[in-house]
């Protein structure tokens, strides 16, 4: 006897994500899920962001890696509220891991919570964590075809970052081609070019400020 169902396999994850989202909204914290391949500069970007925004707003970070707490330690030098999540064999973070890790933070004191997802352009896309926005991050040293090869990430991202612009003269990266691919898949998404290494992250800081204000309907994010 066949029993028809039609129910999303990740329904449980999505239910927990909904709880997370509610908790984040109640605490008035803007939550960003940062997705990019290993080494594209996610931790470096968060370090620089913490540095720039120090004293103006309160930031927390949940950072996922298969192993080690190295990124957690890097970030903890600049941020009081950091939780490292080790996923073992897991190639993404799920809503339940976020729920447990977020319970160790004082959400009410935060303005922005960054989630540095496990370095991977595929799996993290499918898992709703309760974030307000997903941000897709690339770097020029990965090659100009990575956006085209990961359409799902392109479709769900509210913002795209292209990092390591300082390396552009040294690598085979056709910037125009990359932009074309992005526009094909998602005509509306903003694409910001950064060089985290050289502190060139102003467009990102501006975007963050605008989003934080829009999301909260207040000017709590200065």
């Amino acid at each position, binding site marked *: *006897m*066949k*029993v*028809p*169902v*039609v*129910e*999303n*396999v*990740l*329904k*449980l*994850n999505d239910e927990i994500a909904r709880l997370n989202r509610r908790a984040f909204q109640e605490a008035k914290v803007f939550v960003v899920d940062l997705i990019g391949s290993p080494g594209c500069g996610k931790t470096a970007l968060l370090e620089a962001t913490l540095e720039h925004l120090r004293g103006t707003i309160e930031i927390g970070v949940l950072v996922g890696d298969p192993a080690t707490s190295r990124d957690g330690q890097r970030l903890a030098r600049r941020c009081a509220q950091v939780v490292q999540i080790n996923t073992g*064999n*897991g*190639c*993404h973070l*799920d809503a339940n891991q976020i729920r447990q890790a977020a319970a160790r933070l004082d959400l009410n004191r935060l303005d922005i919570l960054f989630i540095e997802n496990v370095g991977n352009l*595929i*799996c993290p*896309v*499918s898992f709703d964590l309760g974030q307000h926005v997903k941000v897709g991050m690339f770097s020029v040293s990965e090659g100009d075809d990575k*956006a*085209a*090869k990961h*359409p*799902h990430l*392109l*479709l769900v991202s509210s913002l795209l970052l292209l990092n390591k612009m300082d390396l552009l003269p040294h690598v085979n990266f056709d910037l125009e081609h990359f932009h074309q*691919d992005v526009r*094909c*898949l*998602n*005509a*509306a998404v903003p694409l910001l070019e950064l060089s985290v290494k050289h502190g060139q992250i102003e467009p990102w800081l501006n975007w963050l400020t605008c989003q934080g204000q829009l999301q909260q309907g207040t000017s709590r994010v200065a």
Partner: protein
Amino acid sequence: MHELSIAEALIDLLRRRAGPEAKLVSVGVRIGALQGIDGQCLQFAWQAALSGTNWQDVRLDLESAPWTLHCPACGRTWQPAAAIADQTACPCGPTPATLAGGDELDLLFYEVQTPAASGVGEGVYSSTKGDGP
């Protein structure tokens, strides 16, 4: 692995839907092309996750759903050949296409053993107490 956590989520969903003691025969799942899930990997993960349990022989029937786009301007619906970005614009103009399929990850059905159906032929094997009409 991604596929392993998908398999585990699926088993979880089935336990709640069908009950942990259900005599499952097969399970149907639809996977959209954008999900980045490899069918063989998922089969492997399914077996690994269920081996040694009451569901270890349950068959996993996978159905794939192609990446499908829809043009709101002219109503055209099409499927870009592979998951590549160069067939995502509609020839009719600049209106961006919307996603009409390919992000599915759905449990479609589960099949359970039907005691009554075994009355003819195979009844010898499966008729147990209380099974009769």
